[in-house]
């Protein structure tokens, strides 16, 4: 992992302290995840320079934005910021909103072009609107994202860009964010309290709680850590990067291959070879000590238990390694404590993981 963004902030509000220190890769999407009030937004605002932390160090690709004697003002930082509310300029047309930042950077720095953004974010049908009032929530947020990207930023900071939107707009906008992730080489910091958004978009995750970093690391490694609060969430699960290998037309199923194994999922509308992410929730994985002979579960995978942790008097979490020796993938399983005892499960044991459902998220 290349750690090219160095972050250290200490900030005291009268009822809240932020004290974070971590490195993040300067490519891909870094999710800043945590419950509300954990300081996610404050951290992002500190990075942007919208909040002036009394103690701070921010170094982006070797360029110092803030240290003990430097503080580059917000308007001179090459960053894009997407707020929770689109915050479009209501006195300007859609096009003028989009080009507000574009006009303010040197022509030589205009790497991202207007046509490219219109295409990428699907803005063709609204680009000529004279005002922004009539746009839907999702359209407004897309314009806001485009506006930020058109400053050709060195880093894109997104503060819960989907939180204010209804479910429909949210699912309308997610594919655009995924395209952004794939097509533009801009590192993104994505603040969210929604695990489903994080699993769809992030490569790297920083978990915050009460203004402190609880954990940071690669997405799946971190999400499958049993000692973290994320493992206790109802929607706790693993994310596996796979590609579409085979379609079974008879039963309308798709086989997804990943390094070290394969899984069957419902049919999806993607070409063979397309990269997808599969999300396997801990509660959808059950364990069998011997290979089940007659079962309705399609995916039965040989696995090795590498960690066991009780979640309470009734439930237990397991961390399982699947795949061959060279390409280990990690998933989680949640079973009852009684099952654990009845099957005599222990670390190191070979078992069979029965995956009841595989959710495809890209």
């Amino acid at each position: 992992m290349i750690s090219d963004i160095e972050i250290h902030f200490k900030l005291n509000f009268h009822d809240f302290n932020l004290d974070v220190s971590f490195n993040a890769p300067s490519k891909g999407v870094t999710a800043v995840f945590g419950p509300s009030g954990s300081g996610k937004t404050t951290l992002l605002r500190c990075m942007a320079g919208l909040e002036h932390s009394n103690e701070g160090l921010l170094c982006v690709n070797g360029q110092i934005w803030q240290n003990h004697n430097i503080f580059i003002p917000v308007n001179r930082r090459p960053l894009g910021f997407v707020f929770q509310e689109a915050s479009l300029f209501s006195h300007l047309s859609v096009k003028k909103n989009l080009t507000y930042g574009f006009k303010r950077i040197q022509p030589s720095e205009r790497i991202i072009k207007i046509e490219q953004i219109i295409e990428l974010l699907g803005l063709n049908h609204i680009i000529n609107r004279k005002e922004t009032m009539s746009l839907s929530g999702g359209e407004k947020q897309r314009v806001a994202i485009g506006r930020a990207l058109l400053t050709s930023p060195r880093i894109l900071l997104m503060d819960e860009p989907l939180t204010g939107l209804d479910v429909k707009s949210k699912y309308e906008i997610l594919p655009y964010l995924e395209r952004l992730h794939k097509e533009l080489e801009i590192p993104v910091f994505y603040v969210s309290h929604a695990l489903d958004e994080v699993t769809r978009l992030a490569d790297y995750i920083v978990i915050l709680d009460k203004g402190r970093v609880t954990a940071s690391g690669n997405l799946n490694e971190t999400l499958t850590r049993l000692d973290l609060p994320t493992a206790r969430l109802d929607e706790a699960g693993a994310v596996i990067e796979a590609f579409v290998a085979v379609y079974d037309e008879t039963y309308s199923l798709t086989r997804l291959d990943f390094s070290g194994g394969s899984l069957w999922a419902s049919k999806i509308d993607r070409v063979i070879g397309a990269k997808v992410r599969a999300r396997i929730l801990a509660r959808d994985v059950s364990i069998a000590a011997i290979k089940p002979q007659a079962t309705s579960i399609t995916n039965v995978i040989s696995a090795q238990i590498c960690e066991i942790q009780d979640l309470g008097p009734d439930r237990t979490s397991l961390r399982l390694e699947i795949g061959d020796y060279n390409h280990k993938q990690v998933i989680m399983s949640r079973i009852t404590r009684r099952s654990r005892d009845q099957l005599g499960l222990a670390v190191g044991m070979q078992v069979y993981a029965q995956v009841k459902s595989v959710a495809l998220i890209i």
Partner: protein
Amino acid sequence: MIKFEPSDLQAIWLTLKLASTTTLLLLLAATPLAWWLANTRRWYKGIIAALMMMPLILPPTVLGFYLLTLMGPHGLIGKFTHILQMNSLPFTFSGLVIGSVIFSLPFAVMPIQNAFEATGKQPLEAAKTLRAGYWDRFFTVALPLAKPGFFSAVILTFTHTVGEFGVVLMLGGNIPGETQVMSIAIYNHVEALEYNAAHLLSGAMVLFSFIVLLILNLMSGRLFKGFK
């Protein structure tokens, strides 16, 4: 046949001139003050705001009286104008302008301040992250978004100055062509029992006010949007 006397026409012209000058000067003075009040967190903000609002509550005659004293030969401003070898301000058009500016100050500041506050920090922060510097943000985001407030401020200041009586009487007196505005002219006509002439001028005032308000309502329907 409706026909204004030359002195009345002069009073109308003077009134319009006074109101326009006052409005223009007030926009220049009220904008920075409103911006400061909308953004500052200093402890003395309350004091400044209270001072700015005084003309709302003070009887115009009291305000006029103090201004007269201040501008008079023994007043602070009077001594200052004397040192600068300027004419003494009372009973001049300039004195009247100064009085009107102070008298209408809250009518200009408050709608603009409210409009700035209603805009909030969000659009300005967005502009900041889009590379706009301080003045750039002020002129391209803060001012245009506060347009309804400026609209209200202009209308309120202008009409308030047109209707002003107490301050003018105390400070400007009754000099035709110099300080005799419409409201004073009406007062003179009534004093002289020239009821027809008084009717004519008063009617013109009523008509003027109505037309202004009507245009406003037709134009936007949000005259008092920025004036809460």
